[in-house]
């Protein structure tokens, strides 16, 4: 014969406390920080638009105004602008790497203290 559960002493499901109950993480805040920080996305988008707009835009902006129809100089300027965007990207990438390293070293210093 099976032993009988004493129903009157047991808490029902509704009375159970959620905090310690079925879901211990219910009270904590989950980590919803995006995997890629917003600053990086903004930077990448800026470089993308610069790469699309800057060279060809500078060509059409200068061909008739500054260079007076001499399309060779305007074309050369467009190529130069494309390379300026590239150099800017390389510098931005190097800076980001350095800032990452600085953050890491700062964190380690804090741990050491």
């Amino acid at each position, binding site marked *: 014969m099976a032993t009988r559960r004493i129903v009157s002493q047991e808490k029902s499901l509704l009375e159970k406390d959620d905090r310690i109950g079925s879901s211990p993480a219910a009270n904590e805040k989950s980590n919803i920080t995006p995997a890629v920080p917003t600053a990086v996305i903004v930077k990448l988008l800026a470089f993308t638009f610069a*790469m699309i707009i800057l*060279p*060809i835009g500078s060509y059409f902006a200068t061909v008739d105004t500054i260079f007076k129809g001499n399309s060779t100089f305007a*074309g050369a300027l467009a*190529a130069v602008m494309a*390379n300026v*965007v590239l150099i800017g990207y390389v510098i931005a990438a190097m800076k980001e790497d350095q800032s*990452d390293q600085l953050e890491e070293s700062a964190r380690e210093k804090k741990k050491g203290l």
Partner: protein
Amino acid sequence: MASTMADSELTPKFAPFLGMAGIAAAMVFGSMGAAYGTAKSGIGIAGVGTFRPDLIMKCLIPVVMSGIIAVYALVVSVLIAQDLGPPSSGTNYSLFNGFMHLACGLSVGLTGLAAGYCIGIVGDKGVRSYMLQSRVFVGMVLILIFGEVLGLYGLIVALILNTKSKG
């Protein structure tokens, strides 16, 4: 046939075909190089990004350089297209201009193909090596610049050739 286009030995009817072929060659071959460079180095970035996501920003450099190859092709295409006009506008498009524009387009297109191929291979292997050894970065960027300069030489030749049409 009262034609507005003077059809002489110097300006035959098929001359614009060569100029158009130059525009198409610049854009098609340049984009082929840029696409190969982007895809091949993109594979490398996908491989690196799973292990070291913090390196993705620096590993994107070959992709940016491949984009520049396409910009070169675009610039030359626009340049050639500005010299072309329909026969109804009264412009006589000479055979010399046709061949010259074909040379412009082929020089920038095929050097772009070469540069994109180089950037793709160096970008793929370079970013994978950079993941393991950070000192590879300077060498990788230098090799990428030298590969990219190949496309720049083609652009310079095309720009110089293009000045000859105003003679």
